[in-house]
């Protein structure tokens, strides 16, 4: 039995459809992210699961119980807000105890549980502080402690890390993930930050315009995108339109880019049919070198000129214009700390046939 089962969920606001025929099953203890650009309906879904919004139609089942029409205060879910929503007139202790006291727990049990939960989020000794006396990261952890204290069946996180600065966000990602595994609570995480989603989730559900685009483990989404939207939404990539050319061998197929160059891609069902396709080549799969690379190592290789170079520590971004073709954006790892390939330099770029992601062109 899934911990959470959502069936054919739908919500409209006037003429706009926020969520449309949304289905999702989440297993016990699983960490699932709802990822998508703003306005894709991910927060609406989360709020419907929490009971803060009533769906137009569809069903929400938590731990086998249909809660579609159960009021919010009887659902026993935990929710962490983007703003944390800590009660400013209560101490850390009272904030965390809030949900426990609503369950009519004896006061000594409340105290015991609050202390346990605060130690889980490493906030021992701050019980008597008020929220405004805490740093952003600490407030975040109080919000988390408050949500998990009543042992909710599902933990819902609404962009909880987006108000933290970058360094703190990385640390909180790790801490949040460890805590989630430790407590074993089924978690739905809403975010627009794809690297955050990929780093933390067991599975990701990518949404666009209220519809599921793809659900799967992060590696599948990144390396085997089911459509053009997923291919371009995740990671940084070069996008092209191409027509399918002749089959080179059983495993390879030639694609003629509209920009006038030919590349080789791995044959699959998607490239079997002829016609126009969408091609995605991720920045990090494109290699840059001074000398022409060995043909056996890289089936696709082109000569070009560096027009832009941006050094940012561990990686270096390049823009290379091919001699008779399009511009390529690529990302190289900083290996030796030298100033290679400055703008104007003649270089070779190369990528494997397997790095070429081919999808149906779609409407646009």
């Amino acid at each position, binding site marked *: 039995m899934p911990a959470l089962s959502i069936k054919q969920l739908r919500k409209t606001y006037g003429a706009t459809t926020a969520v449309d025929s949304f289905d999702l099953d989440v297993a016990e203890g699983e960490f699932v992210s709802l990822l998508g650009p703003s306005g894709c309906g991910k927060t609406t879904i989360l709020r419907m699961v929490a009971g803060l919004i009533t769906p137009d139609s569809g069903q929400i089942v938590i731990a086998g119980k249909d809660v579609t029409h159960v009021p919010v*205060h009887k659902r026993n879910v935990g929710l962490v807000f983007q703003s944390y*929503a800590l009660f400013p007139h209560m101490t850390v202790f009272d904030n965390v105890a809030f949900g426990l006291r609503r369950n009519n727990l004896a006061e000594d049990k409340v105290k015991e549980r609050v202390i346990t939960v605060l130690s889980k989020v490493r906030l021992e000794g701050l019980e008597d502080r*008020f929220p405004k006396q805490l740093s952003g990261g600490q407030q975040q952890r109080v919000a988390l402690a408050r949500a998990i204290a009543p042992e909710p069946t599902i933990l819902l996180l609404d962009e909880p890390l987006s108000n933290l600065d970058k360094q703190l966000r990385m640390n909180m990602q790790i801490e949040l993930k460890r805590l989630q595994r430790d407590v074993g609570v089924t978690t739905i995480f809403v975010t627009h930050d794809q690297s955050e989603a990929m780093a933390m989730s067991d599975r990701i559900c990518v949404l666009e315009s209220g519809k599921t685009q793809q659900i799967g483990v992060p590696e599948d989404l990144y390396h085997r995108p089911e459509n053009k939207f997923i291919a371009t939404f995740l990671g940084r990539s070069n996008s092209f339109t191409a027509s399918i050319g002749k089959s080179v061998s059983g495993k390879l197929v030639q694609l003629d880019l509209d920009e006038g160059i030919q590349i080789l891609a791995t044959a699959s069902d998607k490239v079997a049919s002829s016609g126009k396709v969408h091609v995605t080549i991720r920045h990090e799969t494109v290699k840059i070198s001074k000398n022409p690379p060995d043909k056996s190592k890289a089936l696709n290789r082109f000569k070009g000129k560096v027009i832009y170079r941006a050094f940012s520590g561990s990686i270096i971004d390049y823009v290379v214009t091919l001699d008779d073709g399009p511009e390529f954006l690529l990302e190289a790892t900083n290996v030796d700390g030298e100033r290679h390939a400055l703008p104007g330099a003649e270089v070779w770029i190369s990528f494997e046939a397997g790095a070429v992601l081919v999808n149906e062109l779609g409407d646009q």
Partner: protein
Amino acid sequence: MTNRLRIWLNASGIGLLSPLAIVLLLAFIAPVLIMFPTSLHPYTPGVGIGEGWTLENYVEIFSDSYYHEVILRSLGMAFSVMIFTIIIGCPLAYFLARMQSRARNWLVLLVIFPLLLNLVVRSFGWIALLSKHGLINDVLLSIGMIDEPLKLIFNLTGLIIGMTHIFLPFMVLLVMGSIQNIPVDLEEAAAVLGSNRTRVFFSIILPLSIPGLLSGSILVFILSISALVTPRLLGGPTYKVISTLIYDEFMQLLNWPAGSALAFVLTLIVLVVIWATGRFSKRWMAHLT
């Protein structure tokens, strides 16, 4: 003017307060200071302010049981009006503050509508409703709920009804402002943690709207205790509160000394109320913001 003073005046921008300061000084502080010596003169019946100095006027206020009764009645009335405006005003303020629709502006206008009506017209309206042969008594008598007319006016009940009506807008507007500053997230967080709507109101909304509630309460209390026309009309000539008493001392008995002494006692009460609430709210606000 010393140089340092000039620099301070420029830097603090306090000079900008001078027009208001001058008006207050001339129109408010000066009359008050002139009134104070008056309250220390004896009263000569038929003449007014007598010769010599005395504390008699103040002693009388603190020893005469009639004055005690009037002062207690005024305090009781102002306090009741304050409580009623809280009870009626808070739910209304919450409703208005959380309203999404554009109708809110119209409803707020409706709330402040009593303030736009002339004081006398409004009071006579209440007289028409509340008097012995007024609308309310007539209806209640005719449907047989009561056998004799209820005494709804020219007593405390009438004053409280009338004043609550007039001063409700102040409470609603101030509390509404406070509630609008409470993020909806907080209410939702409390609801998700198992609080029904009543509990959300009492554990989140009410404590966090204390600042508005306190300023509303002070305002309503002070306006009620110092109101003159409404108590005069709804209380009648014999049922007196401190402000109508002061008026009568001045205008009917020409007893300016006793009147001004009473006025200073009223001012003192008001200042004590403001000071006490200020202390309380300061302690409360320390946790917030």
